[in-house]
């Protein structure tokens, strides 16, 4: 009978956000799409362990995140200074993300430690609660909160090097988004 239609729709519905999360983790669209593909293959192979009625997106994010982490650890052994390497790969492909206007922000984001970057993206962009993000990352809620705070502080430092007044000139939108999480 194959995949249940509602499960299939839930998986496809999560794909756009999974891709965005994957790109923020690994910095390359091609690599991110491979990561999403590997995630979907794993998810379907283990679909019996998904509990109907629970959050499909959170389940898929957990698989993707764990898969990325194990790959990342493998690569870390192969490539010295993986964070620096990652930042370099971004620099050499400024348009990979699609829009040049995000390149400065992306470069700053790339300089964050992976655990801070993933926490910030999950809470600040994917719209997960601190509790959900903690579940996805397999750590305590307080740990997520402190990672998000450190990520924000560090990002602000990195961005202000080039002048805090220079980025994000959209005043109308800014007024709506006073530093809070989407959820």
């Amino acid at each position, binding site marked *: *009978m194959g995949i249940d239609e509602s499960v299939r729709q839930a998986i496809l519905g999560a794909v*756009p956000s999974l891709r*965005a999360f994957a790109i923020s983790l690994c910095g390359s669209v091609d690599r991110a799409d491979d990561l999403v593909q590997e995630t979907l293959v794993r998810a379907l192979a283990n679909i019996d362990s998904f509990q109907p009625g629970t959050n499909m997106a959170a389940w898929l994010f957990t698989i993707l995140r764990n898969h990325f982490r194990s790959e990342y650890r493998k690569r870390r052994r192969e490539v010295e200074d993986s964070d620096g390497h990652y930042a370099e790969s971004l620099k050499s492909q400024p348009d990979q993300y*699609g*829009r040049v206007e995000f390149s400065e922000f992306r470069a700053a984001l790339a300089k964050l430690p992976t655990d801070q970057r993933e926490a910030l993206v999950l809470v600040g962009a994917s719209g997960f609660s601190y509790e959900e993000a903690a579940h996805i990352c397999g750590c305590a809620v307080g740990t997520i909160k402190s990672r998000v705070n450190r990520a*924000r502080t560090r990002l602000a430092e990195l961005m202000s090097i080039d002048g805090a007044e220079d*980025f994000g000139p959209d005043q109308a939108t800014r007024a709506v*988004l006073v*530093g809070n999480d989407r959820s």
Partner: protein
Amino acid sequence: MNDRKPPGRQNPMEAAATRNKKTPVKLSREIQARLGQQLRAMYDDVVEQGVPDRFTELLNRLDDSENKGKP
């Protein structure tokens, strides 16, 4: 007779102000807001691309192979 504040209790606003002075890098709400905005704009730029065909096709393929038993 009760015009003195109880000792050891501080107005929460004052407490926050004191904390802020002690924290060297306290983010202004404005900077926080801009960072949040950039992060979401960057993220949503990808989300708006929708589901690339390769993933729809992948699900179809995996579904087929499940129907036929694992290849």
